């Protein structure tokens, strides 16, 4: 089984933990996993990308362009920036909240979130858009955005790993005092998809 998952976002949003959780749960499920992350040089506020490759013993840790099976976008424009890495027919889970960088505020260049949204929708028809911050806030903290988005992707069947392994990875990799909050956020993500399914 092979599955390549790309995570794109803004430094500080928790993308590194997201890729570690996905890879750790894959190892738990008996697969060989690799990841590659952006770490260091005050990455806060900058573009960050994490790669998760499941079933990748003989591959490198970086997903080649046009090969990602799933793109988890933590921020709208960062998702759009990395669409070229998605395989034809690849799936997306996208947090709809736009984060406006300082540069965009300074030169008053607009960040046309609607256009970016339309672009993603047109180029990745199998996308789920979700107000991840609102759901994370419901769990108790916006910092749980990463686990909410993983929950959404898992419930949608976009990740080839069971819920039990994902939950175990959360318990083993998150600081003990935040485990409850993260499990709650994960479940809110799972329920979001179930509720959306019922509404359709």
């Amino acid at each position, binding site marked *: 089984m092979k599955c390549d998952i790309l995570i794109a976002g803004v430094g500080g949003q928790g993308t590194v933990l997201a890729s570690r959780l996905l890879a750790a749960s894959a190892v738990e499920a008996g697969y060989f996993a690799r990841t590659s992350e952006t770490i260091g040089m005050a990455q806060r506020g900058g573009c960050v990308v994490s790669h998760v490759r499941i079933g990748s013993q003989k591959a490198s840790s970086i997903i080649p*362009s046009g090969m990602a099976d799933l793109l988890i976008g933590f921020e709208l424009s960062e998702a759009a*920036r990395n669409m070229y890495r998605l395989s034809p027919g690849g799936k997306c889970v996208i947090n709809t909240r736009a984060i406006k960088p300082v540069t965009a505020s300074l030169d008053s260049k607009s960040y046309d979130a609607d256009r970016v949204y339309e*672009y993603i929708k047109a180029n990745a028809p199998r996308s789920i858009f979700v107000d991840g911050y609102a759901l994370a806030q419901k769990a108790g903290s916006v910092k749980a955005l990463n686990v909410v988005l993983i929950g959404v992707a898992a419930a949608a069947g976009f990740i080839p790993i069971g819920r039990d392994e994902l939950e175990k990875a959360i318990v083993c990799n998150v600081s003990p005092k935040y485990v409850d909050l993260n499990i709650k956020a994960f479940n809110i993500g799972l329920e979001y998809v179930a509720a959306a399914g019922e509404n359709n």
Partner: protein
Amino acid sequence: MAKKLLMGNEAIALGAIKAGVNVVTGYPGTPSTEVLETVARHNPGDIYVEWSVNEKVAMEVAGGAAYAGARALVTMKQMGLNVASDPLMSLAYIGVKGGMVVLVADDPGPISSQTEQDSRHFARFSNLPVFDPSTPEEAFEMIQSAFELSEQVQLPVLLRPTTRICHSCSTLDLPEMGGRKNIEGFEKDPRWVIFPSLSYRKHIQLEELQEKIGDIFSEMPYNTVTGKGSKGIAASGVACSYAGEVLSSINADVKLFKVGTPYPFPSRLAQEFMEGLDEVLVLEELDPVIEESLLELSAKNCGRARIYGKRTKHLPYAGEYSYELVRSAITKFLGIDEAAGRASINLPPPLPARPPVLCAGCPHRASFYAVKTALRKQKAVFTGDIGCYTLGNAKPLEMVDTCLCMGAGITIAQGLHRAEPDARHIAFIGDSTFFHTGIPGLINAVYNNTDITIVVLDNGTTAMTGHQPHPGTGKTMMGNISEKIDIKGILSACGVKHIAKVNPFDLKKSVEVVKEAVSHKGPSAVIFEAPCIAVTKPSIRQVVGDKCTLCKKCIREIGCPAISFNGEKIEIEPSLCYGCTLCSQICPAGAIGGADR
């Protein structure tokens, strides 16, 4: 054996623990930092671990331990090896008794470094062997082999991963960790004292060893020749992983030479690889080290194979390699046409640029703003240094006019001042950098009475590399509390006559303090003291009230990532605001204040 997901740097650290390492030293530097941190985290209790004050010190502490027969590991990034190159060059002559591994992480790209220098040259320059891992799991094995080789040839050995190895995770089988190496102790002997006559004799031995080590390397499993045909690819590091992935997706007869130990070159195995080849493609990041070794070997044997790489402009020197770049080079080399059938991607609409910025609430922003305000109408140059505060060069602060290398802010300012005495010269330096290499430059300014102002940005941590302790914090990697080294005391002991300490979030006072320091004749210093926001709790977050006149001074002047204009009003993102109050202190309408009012 349990399967575990480990980062390359964690794998290296656990490999060192398994190899029985006794002493680990280093200075933080991306992408090497997590190696030492992981040893400290998994310390069974009998490993001595320290963050040293700089890389030269770390290298010498590790060297001393190895003199006594301990297994020692010293960690740093590539520019750190420049600082530590003095002891490294001499250690190659003196040698070691216990195994000594120099972990030096290179950063192709560069992703977070000043240069793209290739540490394999340092191996060649110093005549020391170097291992170059292509995956985290290989790095785990290599560090154990490096310790063994070091003891076998009694020389320090380099292990040189790159960012994509250090910061990639892989699935590893973790065996039992084993115990420490038994330390024989230091034996007094003339071999430990470097004199010209000894150096001459050692130089002869060192040169003789090179071929022997090359032969040892030819037998090691890190160097392999596979496949067949008249075309061959030689590859190393992460480029080798990319090449393997490309070759598994195309059907072609090609020989692959994986080089895991680039220096001394495994010539015997390389010769086997070159046999029967007409053309060779070399895939290695940074400099053409393997390419040049193959060219040399080919010339020596009057070989006819054509060797393609950086020297022939088939591949770039600068920047990191990617799967796509390697694929394109290989398919061209093998004559495979890939242009047809490639799906084109629709380009996205214009997306906002997103360079890294100082965090919301960062004390450096307040410090820069205070200095900028104090010197508004004066001719002034602001020299910077290495740390988060290098980001102060970005708009709208624009307060870092120069940045060269660790400790150079204070010294470049002195040179600028000698050339242009009528201008004000302000040197910014962080607390960890101050201890690293700031102090000699400080003494130089006092000794030569150079009229500069040194601004120490003391946030109480080594922030950029992930909050490591340093001499000013009074904490050590052994979990002990030690004497805090007082920066103000050092400035004073070095003879600085005008020293002031201020909290940068008191803007009015900060501006006054800077004005006074700058007007002082001779070297002066200001210490801005406020902790890094990543290690403190937020204060009362700020909100914009009705009095806002939309003058946008807050956006125009301080560049806080929490503040934006949504087309109608100014907003402060509550999840980002730390309540530093800088925006409310500069708001001319008094419209910004704490959310609790």
